[in-house]
């Protein structure tokens, strides 16, 4: 079991997942957001190759348009 922090909530995964798999599992299928892994933004084109494992912190960041 792999425990990660997803949007600041603890989440247990059966196995290591790619970032792309994790996002689909969590219902993020559209564009229009950015993702940071361990406080660093990850380009969308690498979601399928970034591996998320025990102890990682993943944040889905939605842009704020207000001013």
């Amino acid at each position, binding site marked *: 079991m792999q425990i990660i922090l997803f949007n600041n909530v603890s989440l247990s995964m059966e196995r290591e997942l790619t970032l792309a798999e994790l996002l689909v599992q969590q219902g993020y299928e559209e564009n229009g957001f950015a993702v940071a892994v361990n406080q660093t933004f990850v380009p969308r084109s690498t979601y399928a190759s970034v591996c998320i494992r025990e102890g990682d912190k993943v944040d889905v960041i939605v*842009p704020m*348009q207000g*001013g």
Partner: protein
Amino acid sequence: MTPEETQRYSRHFSLPHLGVAGQKRLKRSKILCIGAGGLGSPALHYLCAAGVGTLGIIDHDRVELSNLQRQILYNVKDIGQLKTLAAKSRLLKQNPNIDIIAHPEKLTEKNALSIIQDYDIVLDGTDNFNARYLINDACCVLGKPNIYAGVFQFSGECSVFMPNNGPCYRCLYDTPPSISPNCSEAGVLGVVPGIMGTIQATEALKLALGQCSSLVGKVLRFNALNLTFETFTLSANPDCPLCSNGQSFYDLSHHHSQELCTMTSLNNDASTSTIEYITPQALKTLMEQNSDFILLDVREPEEYEECNLAGLLIPLRELNLRHHELDKEKSIIVHCRMDGRSLQAAEFLCQIGFPTVKYLKGGIVAWAQEIGDMPNISIPL
């Protein structure tokens, strides 16, 4: 520097990196603030007070009473006035030594380059994605630093995008979300743009003084509820059309194509929308017939608690992530308080392939007026 200025800026003179030389640098700098609202108000106040020699203000809006909750540049007498002109007169009272250039017009693909090119530094204090992408692209083309901030309810974010190698706004957000409420829809705590706009002014002053900004390649996210500041690292995105492979020119006429077309189509109001509506009476009939449809409430949970029609609650801002909770086989009737959010939601659901989507005309307010009977109501509307 005049004796008046020497006295006025005396608190700057003993500061490292500033002094008389730094003050002269500020006087020579030209900073453009795009948007004179919640973010622009504090930013302009401080830049003016600090003695930035030329301040440009671009905004096409007029002051409204609902602006005064956070837009501290304005007072009751300014209501109905152009924001640029009201801001200029207020700021000149604060510091008559500086030049303020009002641009009372909307920033467009046509005027962006010619307006921005006269300034050294740009502050993005706008309230919509179209403007934010346009400012980003224009600043990349012209090689101007773009100090960006955005706010949402109790949160804000800020970053500084330097020209040439990026990262830029497109490196961070390649496409806007298909739906996203603005301040008038989602609300904002007034101090949040106050804090974020003040951070923008801080970084602008540092750049004007020839110092580095601490927010290059960083995104600062602020949450007022738990009072946290979180910093994220951002690198140039290899897929960014502006920052990848050293592309030095980008045609601004491409703006409304592709990525932004979904946003512009969401600006439809009831009069131009092709979405069908249903009246409260017709909805009541459907309910009484136990028809098979989903009533979708896209308001916020707090509004739902106050009163609701027992619909499924998915706030508009979450709909792009949670639409799979809806059964595509069923017809959907969307409602909000009145018409604004429900129309956006209905447009969105149509775009992503829901075959039958209608909205409740006049929302729950119309229901309360015409039907009165509220299945789940705890306190009056």
